[in-house]
């Protein structure tokens, strides 16, 4: 028995070693992103599969709890971070991110490859998707939603809305900037006037959205693309986004590569891959956002609102003012 087992074991040992050597030779591209991007229902798995087929590498998504969580993690890790790429920051974080000095120019040409409603040119960040913030309502329960932000701010008290906290949530910050961009220095009064209609302010997007679905509020701050989810997955078009006359504030989500990326060549290749149709075509029905590059939109996106104006502060304006503006918001709602 002993004699017959030994050769078998030797073969097994050789196979295991060669396999592990092979595994070690496959380079790994590490991408920090937010949880829902990497999840089974997000775009992560499909993108991982396509890119692995063309790069002969192993894509490793590291899922963190939010876009601000991604930046925080990279800042904590500093130059020794294992990340090659961060995917899931937005324009509001770009200035802060660039100032850390941890990111490298991507070297990707954006000319003619993007389809954003605003001009976007940046040597460090590549946009991968975008969306409009909007108030979503149930058309079966609410026949005539407000048609402008001002109408909502001055609406009768029986309209109840639920929003997110700008300090903890991306849409929450989006609304803060939206109100500021419409009202300017009068934003504080606008918030005070809106205050009686705010049922509650939640930590995250889903807390608010689920409250709305449960009938706790008439409208919820979300994205103009949210109704597409309900059309595609739930088969209902009763949830609609209210189009506001002043135009809608935007969110542009971006990716960047790290200066000290362990796999700089692969990282550069991935940065270029972001705007390819293989990546972009996954976005609409997996991340429920508009693709930042060129890709066909599914039918469910046809009926979505088309805002008259896309509002967006520059990353520099946001970085310089957000603390003061959040203070203004806090004071107005604490009265």
């Amino acid at each position, binding site marked *: 028995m002993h004699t017959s087992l030994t050769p078998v074991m030797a073969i097994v040992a050789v196979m295991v070693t060669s396999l592990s050597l092979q595994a070690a030779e496959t380079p790994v591209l590490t991408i920090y992103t937010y949880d829902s991007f990497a999840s089974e229902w997000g775009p992560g798995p499909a993108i991982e599969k396509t890119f692995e087929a063309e790069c002969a590498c192993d894509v490793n998504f590291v899922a963190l709890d939010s876009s601000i969580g991604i930046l925080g993690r990279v800042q904590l890790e500093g130059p020794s971070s294992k990340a090659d790429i961060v995917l899931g920051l937005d324009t509001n974080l770009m200035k802060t991110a660039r100032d850390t000095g941890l990111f490298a120019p991507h070297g990707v040409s954006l000319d003619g490859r993007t389809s954003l409603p605003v001009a976007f040119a940046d040597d460090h960040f590549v946009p991968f998707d975008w969306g409009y913030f909007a108030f979503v309502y149930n058309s079966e329960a609410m026949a005539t939603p407000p048609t402008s932000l001002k109408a909502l701010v001055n609406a009768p008290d029986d309209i109840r809305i639920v929003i997110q906290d700008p300090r903890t949530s991306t849409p929450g910050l989006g609304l803060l900037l939206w109100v500021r961009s419409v009202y300017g220095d009068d934003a504080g009064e606008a918030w005070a006037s809106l205050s009686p209609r705010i049922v509650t302010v939640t930590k995250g997007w889903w807390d608010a959205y689920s409250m709305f679905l449960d009938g706790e509020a008439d409208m919820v701050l979300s994205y103009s693309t949210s109704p597409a989810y309900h059309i595609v997955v739930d088969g209902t078009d009763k949830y609609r986004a209210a189009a506001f006359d002043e135009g809608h504030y935007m969110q542009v989500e971006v990716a960047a590569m790290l200066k000290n990326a362990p796999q700089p060549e692969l990282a550069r290749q991935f940065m270029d891959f972001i705007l390819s149709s293989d990546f972009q075509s996954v976005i609409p029905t997996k991340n429920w956002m508009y693709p930042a590059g060129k890709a066909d939109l599914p039918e469910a996106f046809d009926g979505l609102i088309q805002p008259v104006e896309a509002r967006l502060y520059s990353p520099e304006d946001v970085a310089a003012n957000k603390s003061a503006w*959040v203070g203004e918001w806090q004071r107005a709602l604490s009265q």
Partner: protein
Amino acid sequence: MAARAQPIALWRRPGPISPVGLGIAIGLLALALAAIGALVSVAGHGPAGGGGNILRVAAFTAMQASLSTLLALALALPVARACWRRAATWRAGWLLPFSFLPVVMPTTVAATGLIGVWGQRGFVSDYLALLGLDRLPPIYGLGAVLLAHVFFNAPLMLRVLNGALTSVPASQWRLSAQWGLSEWERFRQIEWPALRPVIPGLLALVFLLCFTSFSLILMLGGGPAVTTLEVNIYTALRFDFDLALAGKLALLQLVICGAVVVLLTRLTGRSWAAATPRPTHGVPHQKGDTSTFCRTVDALALALFIIITMLPVIAILVRGLGPYLIVVSEWPALYRATVTSLVIALSSGSLATMIALVLASARTRRSDAGLAVWPLDLSISLYLAVSAIVLGTGLFILLRQVADVFLLAPLLVTVGNMLIALPFAYRVLEGRLAALATAHDRLCAGLGLRGWRRLRRVTLPAIAPELGFAAGLSSALSLGDMTIVALFGSQQFQTLPWLLYQTMARYRAGEAAALSLWLLTLTFLLFMGFTLAARMLGRRRHA
């Protein structure tokens, strides 16, 4: 000094367990301070200042936490008495096994349950509408926060207070029945002396939980006016990336909570000593128990308790039942996440219970020997006052320099959960051990039982139910954890709450409700498993 010569005094010496416990306590204290220190020492990028209204926030937080704690006690106390004296006639004891569920629930899940009861389309509003009355107005604000805190904490208080009542010797109940003590007299002479020693510790525990409340405050508070220091800590850490400010705020939170813990511990004094084994059958009928007034009061207390603490759990069950359970059951990710969660929950739960046992024993021995116990109480309670995000970030900064944090993620999540469960396990064990110590000291001295043999033969069987409760509670707590895992989590390392979180982030309300139900069921099974195992342990040792 002469007293020291008596044989019984041998058991009054703290013994080797005391330095071991003190060592662990100092280690825990050092770890917490190191984590905060790491934050403060890393230069932040945030704007300076921003702490103008901090004292106002701290004062509001303390007010909110005190109110929540007192309200929870005000509900739990009459319910504990009702549960105790109606255990035989109304079978009110069935509430107890469910009583740990709220405290271990992820807040997001609990909030859906609360809204399912008190919301615009909730049970209460539906019932009012059925009667032709107006639906409830939106509940959000300080009131909703207080209601939620009572929901979370009153059941835990009920459990501990009920435990204190069961340790009243049957002989005292018999005397009280014979003398025909009035309701008030009985409370003052018999029940209060049993309840009093556990109440300060309980108040401290619940105060800290309410003081550091975070997601729930944001969800139900109605706006930034209702806030806690923890919200500012999170904001400093995440929104402003001002680590130094976050560290300072964490320190302030620690100081306030530490002061409350020390104050309340000093109130405790010596634990109530005349403990005997629990009576196995009902207590003699007390005068007035069958009066209509007394029965009405008990019925009202129990009904209120069920509405506040049980209905939200039922709302979660109702939401979760449905076709989505089948959808979810077909996900391979569900089984992977379940296994991961169970492994972490079982290991951190057992670890927390073992360490809590050492610390609680050390506390009892030190208390008997007249040594200070506050260092133990303080160091353990601190882990309720250090927010998970501060602890996690601090540990991350410290460990990053010496190890690969990604490889360590499962270990870190286990240890993190263990630290958070430790104060609960400690409170549960400490009360019972203190009560037992005096009762057993003389007996064990007489038999010459000491050290390991005493632990195995006498102490373990006697505290088996508490051991089961502590282990069940600790494991269940870590099964429901969403904070620690979010700090260290990655795609390869997925727990059930993390899966739930990902489901929610993609609009999937139905699946999220089904997953919540699954998580709740698993929590309950895990807890019951520990309780049954403890019961078997207790029986076998007695036989």
